[in-house]
């Protein structure tokens, strides 16, 4: 580019920069008005106390964070969110990889299968929650009806405090696994075919090929899917709001749901912003941690 630009006068450059400025301006306004300013404001409000009657925020220092440290429901929400993440993410990654391996072979039926598995990713989370909520209904749901055929007694599912969170995790896995699958599919297709041929000539079996070629060469894909699905798992909200409301007996009380209800049901805006800051910091820390440990593996 520099060689061409040198051919032209300064006025042309000035005109170009002016055009570039106006082309960038709308996006920049959006960026600062709706991204950076609210984030800064979340931080500011977390040091205040909101008065419902006057609508004013008064500075109170670290008081909200102090309350947070001794808030049993916050602790419970974080514990449930972490549990949700532990159920969802490993399962979704494993299933995503398996599905990708299954349909990596070209052919008409695998294309149809891919389309079907991707349907949930374009279906609203609200619809997915509702339809699976009804299928897991403990009295009239299809799932219990199917279990009965196999002689398994009816389960409580969303009404059972031990089953509710895993059921919600299954619903979101159903919804999201298609995206993990296409990332893995792209990763698989990028592995040079010659590697497999060479290893096979060296006498590697199928498991050996998978263990020593497929898995390690998918490393970048693993990291990407891990980090993005972890962030998504920590932000679980819609199925909780639509199906359980945090119950039964707080078994599905998760962090974003707790923040949402503090702010928009109980008007505790300031305390909710403090929890938002904690959530944001937590997510960044987890992402960095995951990137770090996976990079260490690369060095081995």
């Amino acid at each position, binding site marked *: 580019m520099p060689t061409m630009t040198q051919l032209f006068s300064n006025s042309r450059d000035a005109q170009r920069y002016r055009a570039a400025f106006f*082309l960038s301006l709308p996006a920049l306004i*959006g960026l600062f008005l*709706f991204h950076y300013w609210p984030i800064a404001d979340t931080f500011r409000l977390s040091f205040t106390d909101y008065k419902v009657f006057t609508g004013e925020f008064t500075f109170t220092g670290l008081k909200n964070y102090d309350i947070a440290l001794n808030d049993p429901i916050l602790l419970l929400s974080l514990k449930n969110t972490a549990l949700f993440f532990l159920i969802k993410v490993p399962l979704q990654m494993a299933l995503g990889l398996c599905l990708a391996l299954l349909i990596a072979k070209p052919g008409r039926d695998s294309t149809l299968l891919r389309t079907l598995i991707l349907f949930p990713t374009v279906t609203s989370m609200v619809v997915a929650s509702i339809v699976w909520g009804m299928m897991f209904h403990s009295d*009239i749901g299809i799932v219990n*009806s199917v279990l009965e055929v196999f002689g398994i007694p009816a389960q409580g599912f969303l009404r059972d405090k031990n089953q509710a969170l895993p059921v919600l995790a299954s619903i979101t896995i159903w919804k999201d696994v298609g995206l993990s699958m296409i990332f893995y599919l792209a990763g698989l297709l990028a592995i040079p075919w010659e590697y497999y041929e060479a290893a096979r000539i060296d006498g590697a079996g199928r498991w050996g090929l998978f263990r020593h070629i497929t898995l390690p060469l998918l490393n970048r894909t693993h990291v990407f899917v891990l980090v993005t699905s972890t962030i998504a798992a920590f932000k679980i909200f819609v199925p909780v709001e639509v199906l359980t409301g945090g119950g039964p007996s707080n078994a599905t009380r998760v962090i974003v749901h707790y923040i*949402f209800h503090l702010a928009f049901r109980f008007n505790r805006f300031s305390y909710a912003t403090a929890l938002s800051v904690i959530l944001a910091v937590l997510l960044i820390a987890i992402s960095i941690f995951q990137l770090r440990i996976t990079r260490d593996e690369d060095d081995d």
Partner: protein
Amino acid sequence: MTEARLRSAPMPGASYRFSFESLSRVALYLIIVVVFATPYLWIAGSTFKTRQDLFDDLYPVSLKTFLPSAPTTENLVELFTETNFAQAFLNSVVVAAMSVTFAVTINSMIAFVLAWLQFPGRRLLFLVILATLTIAFEAKLIPLFLTMQQLRIDNSLPSIFLPWITDAFIIFLLRQHFAELPQDLYDAAIIDGCSFFRMYWQVMLPNITPALVSAAFIKFIFSWDSFIWPSIVITDESKTVITVALAKLFSDEYIRWELVFAGSFVATVPVVLIFIFLQRYYVQGFVRSGLK
């Protein structure tokens, strides 16, 4: 070596045989189809049943659960005439259309600048934009809501899509595609005396059409799916969107199951149909932005 190559090469016809492996493969396919298709078949079947049939066919599960024996459009008619679903559907369409139009326009403009203009701080600006991806939008909902109130645009359709127009994901995706266009294209346009704006609009933009379709469709899905933000910023029934209207139907004390099914049907059919046609762009959009 050639022998090994031949043996490993899939030969048409030769590989087809009944074995434990091919049987288990078929079984796997079946399980996948059942798990992924059942909810859709159930929604579609139940939408066209009367409330009585719906409950009669529910338990135990049989073919009748998915196929209406006496199909009726009663539920859809009732949904559109007796609830605010028609309005909510229309609002969702308007919001999605606005969101897509503005997002593709505005983000492609800045993506072009980031790809084709050398200026001090270019990398920094790009990083500042990408950094927004690391912060959960849930963490800024409260000030965003208060801002909407202060601007006095809360409870309006623009307030639903305005905050999400600048989209780092789209900027990243489109910048990638702009940057891959050949230098010759740029040089030729410069020699022809093309202005910077025309370079964007007439020379470069038409060359990344597939990426624009990807961005537009992914934004459309995002908009159609949005639930938290509209449920916060909209209090007026007439301005509600389809997801919120559906969740409300589902949370009523006396749930009209047949309407919930019809509502789910109406909320799902348009996106799934569009998806079938735009699937390639959808997959490309995610794959290209994820792994480069």
